[in-house]
């Protein structure tokens, strides 16, 4: 859409207004140094001091049964069984020499076609949140998966 002369003038005036209101700000090298120092400090705080309780927690498949509903977990294991269902795909994932956990990808929330092609024995990394099925059994509702070659 072509701007009319009036609208264009208004846009230019708005820009001039910003220029005018910033008129008293001087851009000296010392200001840039302070800005960079603040960015460094903010970055270090976010990287090393930010609470990361809600981030994915690395766990083994067996320990999911003991976890609280809603906790975000990252786990890896061997695919034992894959079931395609009307609502999504369910995978039985087992750690080496330990227990298993059921991970579930809802058709609504996740791309499930690739998961159906998984074969027993394949190594899978999974990220998701702990959910409780009827009866209180814990399973992992998948956010994302990665097949390890």
């Amino acid at each position, binding site marked *: *859409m072509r*701007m009319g002369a009036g609208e264009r003038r208004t*846009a*230019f005036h708005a*820009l001039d207004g*910003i*220029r005018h209101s*910033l*008129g008293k*700000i*001087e*851009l*000296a*090298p010392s200001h*840039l*140094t302070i*800005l*960079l*120092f*603040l*960015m*460094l400090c*903010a*970055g*270090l*705080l*976010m*990287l*090393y001091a*930010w609470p*990361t309780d*809600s*981030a*994915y927690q690395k766990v083994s498949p067996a320990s999911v049964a003991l976890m609280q509903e809603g906790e*975000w977990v*990252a786990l890896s294991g061997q695919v034992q069984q894959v079931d395609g269902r009307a609502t999504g795909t369910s995978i039985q994932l087992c750690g080496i020499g330990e227990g298993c956990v059921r991970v579930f990808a809802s058709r609504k929330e996740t791309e499930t076609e690739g998961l159906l092609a998984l074969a027993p024995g394949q190594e899978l990394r999974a*990220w998701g949140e702990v959910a409780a099925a009827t009866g209180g059994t814990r399973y992992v509702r998948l*956010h*994302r998966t*990665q097949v390890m070659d």
Partner: protein
Amino acid sequence: MSIDPFLLVFALLGGILASLLPGLHPNSISTILTPWLGSSEAWPLVLVALLGVRLALQFLPSILVSTPVGQTEIGLLPGARMMREGRGLEAVAVCAWATALSVGLALLLSPLLLPILPALFAAVKPWTGYLLVLAAGTLILAEREIKKAGLALVVFLMAGALGAMALNLPLNDPLFALFVGFFTMPALLMGEEREAIGKKQQPQKSMGAVGKDILPFILLGVVFGGLSDLLPGLSTPAQVATLATLAVPLSAPAHFLALVASIEASHTTFAFTSAASTGIARVGVVAMIGQIEPITEAQLPVLLGVFAIAAAVGTGALLVVGKWLMPRWHMLDWKSMSWLLALYLLVMTGLLDGWLGLLVLGMASGLGVLAWRLGVRRTHVMGSLIVPSILHAFGM
């Protein structure tokens, strides 16, 4: 996701070295090294560090030798112009200010955008194709003379066909081959750089001082940078900057440079927020990190933290390296340099993308020279990105 402080320092230093060499984009580094290092918990953060450092430092090669800078290929035009006027040091300072301020502002705005981005995406998506057609038309008609607009349309469509082809080829970094061809090779072939290199750079009283008149353009750049993350078709800052030149009065190359640099900086910063809230990342490295491990709101502080540190270090390095290099630049033997640079770019393209990449580079170089000969704006080669975006928006 976490990173050891020593590894972080190592990644930042590596990022400085890699950023000074055109062609070693974090996209390429990630493509090559992720199969080996992808399982390390720190690897995504190493990539973020490389991206952040490069964000500022990428402008230096673009100012000095007109090589493309990441996704802001037309950033080389105002920077190289200032270099030719002997204002290379000022161009470096403008890029440093634009990068630092835009990253800072985008970091502050990110928590506010996080909850509203999904709704904004959904609202804009149906109109993307029409907006892009409108934008392309405006870009071509900006030539003003009918004959020139016709020639611009030819260049735009040819670049569009080449872009559509290149983006569908199995190339690691198709944009590098395309934009080295469109901009750098014609400049080397036509001896344009000799003009820049022969010009002694004016000293600055104090490195890092710039006119306050660039501030509005930095603020506008942050707004346009946010828009470039929002519109599915306008995925590169270069496209947004090209369109912005039609709407914003730009009387000086320093203003344009400030606008382009801040679009690039804010676009890259917002890409993390966009990936966490909508799952869509419009920056290659961010998308690759998302494939290694999902980017969630919980991880944003860590990712943005590393990015802020790296952007600050990159900006500092830009000032230091620029201050050292600029006064010495005119002493170089440009004739040998241009051959060496052309050879280096050919080798890099060959290493990255093989003979297919070299083919794309050759065709893009021809088109870049054609635009030059026809006397139309070289920005019309941005059809190489806009045409594929339009085709994609209409499901073609």
